[in-house]
C-alpha cells in the first residue's frame, strides 16, 4: 500500500522555481530518504505536504485520500526547526501537541520525554534548552501517540554523535514496529545506513527515486590498475560493456552496464592484450558518491 503519492508538484517563489514537477510515492513501512543539496526543494516539498505552503500545481494524497487536517493528526512531524512555545515547559508543549493532534495522553508524554532523554528537564522552559535538547523535544513531539507515519526533516541537526546514533537506532526501531518514516537529510551516511528507499532532488527537480539498491546500482564500478596506466586505458577502451573510464589516483575507474561487470572477463581481456593487472576490484557504490554524481553539474 502507498502511504503518500505525489503527482507533478510545482512551486515558485516570485521568479524562483522551487519545485519543478515532483512526483514519487512512498510505500507503507518504508524508511524513505529525501536527499538533495541546500536549496534543492526538500523542505518546500515537505511544507506543501503538510499544508504550511501551497503548491502552484500538482496534487498529493496521504493514505489514498486528498490532504486534510484530520490526516495530519496521524502524521508525526519535525519540519525544519523545533517550533515550540518558548515560555512553556517540555511537558506543557507536548500537552499542546497532544491536544491538537489527539495523539498521546499524559502518561505517554512522560514516557516520550524519557525516551528522548528530557524527563529530568521536563519542567524547564523550552527557552532554556540547548539546540540538541530542542531537537530531541521536536522528535519526541513527532513520536507522540506512535503515529503510523513520521516525517523528520534533518532530525540529527544539533545532536552530538551519541545523539545521532540514538536517533538512528530509534528510527530503525520505529521501522521494525511498522511505522513509515519519511526522512529528509544531508547526512548521506545516515540515510544509507537506515533508508530502504530514496528520492534525490536537485534544483527543484527529482533526479531519481526508488529503493536504495535501485538508485545505487544503476551501473557497476570496477577499479583496475597496471604498471602502464596509459596503455591500460587504451586497451580497456575496447572492452564491450564499458560505458566510461576515468583515472583515479594510480588506478582507472570503469563504469559498466548494470550487472555486466565480470572481473574474470576483464582480467582475461587485458591479459590477452598483453597487460597484467596488478589491481582488480568490484567497487560497491556508496550513496555519497552516487549523490554527487547525480547532483553535480
Amino acid at each position, binding site marked *: 500500500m502507498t502511504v503518500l503519492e505525489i503527482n507533478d508538484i510545482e512551486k515558485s517563489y516570485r521568479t524562483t522555481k522551487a519545485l519543478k514537477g515532483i512526483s514519487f510515492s512512498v510505500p507503507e513501512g518504508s524508511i524513505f530518504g529525501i536527499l538533495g543539496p541546500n536549496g534543492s526543494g526538500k523542505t518546500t516539498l515537505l511544507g506543501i505536504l*503538510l499544508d504550511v505552503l501551497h503548491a502552484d500545481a500538482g496534487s498529493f494524497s496521504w493514505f489514498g485520500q486528498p490532504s486534510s487536517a484530520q490526516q*495530519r493528526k496521524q502524521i508525526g512531524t519535525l*519540519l525544519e*526547526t523545533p*517550533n515550540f*512555545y518558548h515560555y*512553556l515547559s517540555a511537558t*506543557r508543549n507536548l500537552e499542546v501537541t497532544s*491536544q491538537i493532534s489527539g495523539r498521546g495522553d499524559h502518561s505517554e508524554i512522560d514516557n516520550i520525554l524519557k525516551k528522548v532523554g528530557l524527563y529530568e528537564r521536563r519542567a524547564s522552559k523550552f527557552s532554556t534548552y540547548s539546540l540538541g535538547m530542542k531537537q530531541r523535544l521536536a522528535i519526541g513531539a513527532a513520536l507522540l501517540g506512535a503515529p503510523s507515519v513520521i516525517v523528520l526533516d534533518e532530525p540529527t541537526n544539533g545532536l552530538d554523535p551519541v545523539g545521532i546514533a540514538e536517533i538512528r537506532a530509534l528510527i530503525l526501531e520505529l521501522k521494525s514496529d511498522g511505522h513509515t518514516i519519511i526522512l529528509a537529510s544531508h547526512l548521506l551516511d545516515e540515510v544509507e545506513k537506515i533508508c530502504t528507499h530514496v528520492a534525490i532532488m536537485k534544483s527543484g527537480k527529482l533526479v531519481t527515486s526508488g529503493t536504495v539498491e535501485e538508485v545505487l546500482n544503476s551501473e557497476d564500478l570496477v577499479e583496475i590498475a597496471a604498471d602502464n596506466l596509459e596503455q591500460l586505458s587504451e586497451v580497456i577502451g575496447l572492452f564491450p560493456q564499458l560505458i566510461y573510464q576515468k583515472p583515479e589516483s594510480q588506478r582507472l575507474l570503469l563504469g559498466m552496464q548494470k550487472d555486466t561487470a565480470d572481473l574474470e572477463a576483464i582480467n582475461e581481456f587485458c591479459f590477452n592484450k598483453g597487460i597484467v593487472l596488478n589491481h582488480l576490484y568490484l567497487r560497491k557504490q556508496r550513496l555519497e558518491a552516487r549523490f554527487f554524481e547525480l547532483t553535480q553539474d
Partner: protein
Amino acid sequence: MLQILKIEWLKIKSYSAFWWTLGITALSYIAASYAMVGFYHQLSNNPQMAKTAQILLGNPFAFNEVWHTIAYISSLFIIIPSLVVIMLITNEYTFKTHRQNIIEGWSRGQFLTGKLLDIAVVSLLIGLIYVGACLIIGSTNTGAKDIVGSSKTYFIGYFFLQTFSQLSIAFVIGFLVRKSFIALGIFIFSIAILEPMLTWLFSKYDLVIGHFLPFEISDRMIPPPAFMAKMNPDAYKLAMNSTGQQVLYTLLFSTLLWFFCFRINAKRDL
C-alpha cells in the same frame, strides 16, 4: 470550539507576560476612573466651585450615568490590552508555532478561530473589569437625588463590542506585520496620531467618511459623556441617537475584518 478554547488556555495559562499586561490593564482602567472620581470630588467639595460643578457636570459617577462615564474613560486605554493581543499573534510567528499547530492537525481556520476566541475572552475580561469598576464607583457615588435604574447599562454591551472591535484591529496589524514591535508601533501610530488627524481633517471639510475610520466607527458608540457635552447639547443628542447605528457599523466592520483574516490565512504560505 471548546477544544480550541482549551488549547488556547494551555498556551496562555503559563504565559506570565499575558497576565502581567492584563493586570496592568485592570489597574489602569480602575486607576484612571478613580483619578477622575477624585478630580470630581475635589471640585464638588470646593465651596466656591461646588454649585458650578453641579450645574456643569451633574453627577457623572452616579448610577446611571456611571456606565457611560467609565466606558468612555476606559476606552481611552485600549492600547494596553492591545499589547496583549499583538503579543498573542506575533509570538506564534516568532516561535513558528503558527506552522506547528497546522502541521499537528489544526486547519488554518481552527488556528484563527483560536485567536478570535482569545480576543473575545480578553474583551470579556476587560468588560468584567469595567462592570466591576462601574458597580464600585457607582454605588459609592450615588446619592439620594440620583435616579437609579438600568437605562444606561446598554453601555456594557457597547463597551464590550468597542473593545472587541479595536482589539481586532490590533490583531489584524499583528497578523499582517508578524513582528511585535513594528505591529505595536503601527497600532499606536494609527490610534494616537493617524486616525485623530484624519478624523479632524474629514470633519473640517464635512466629509462623512471620517465617521467610518477603523477606530472611529466603534468610538462613536460611546460618545463623550453628558458632562463633557454641556458645551454643545445638540451634538451630544445627535451622537447619542446614532449609537445604535454605530453598533451595526461596528458589527459589520469587525465581521469584515475577521473575514479578511480568514481569507488571507487560507491563501497565504505560512
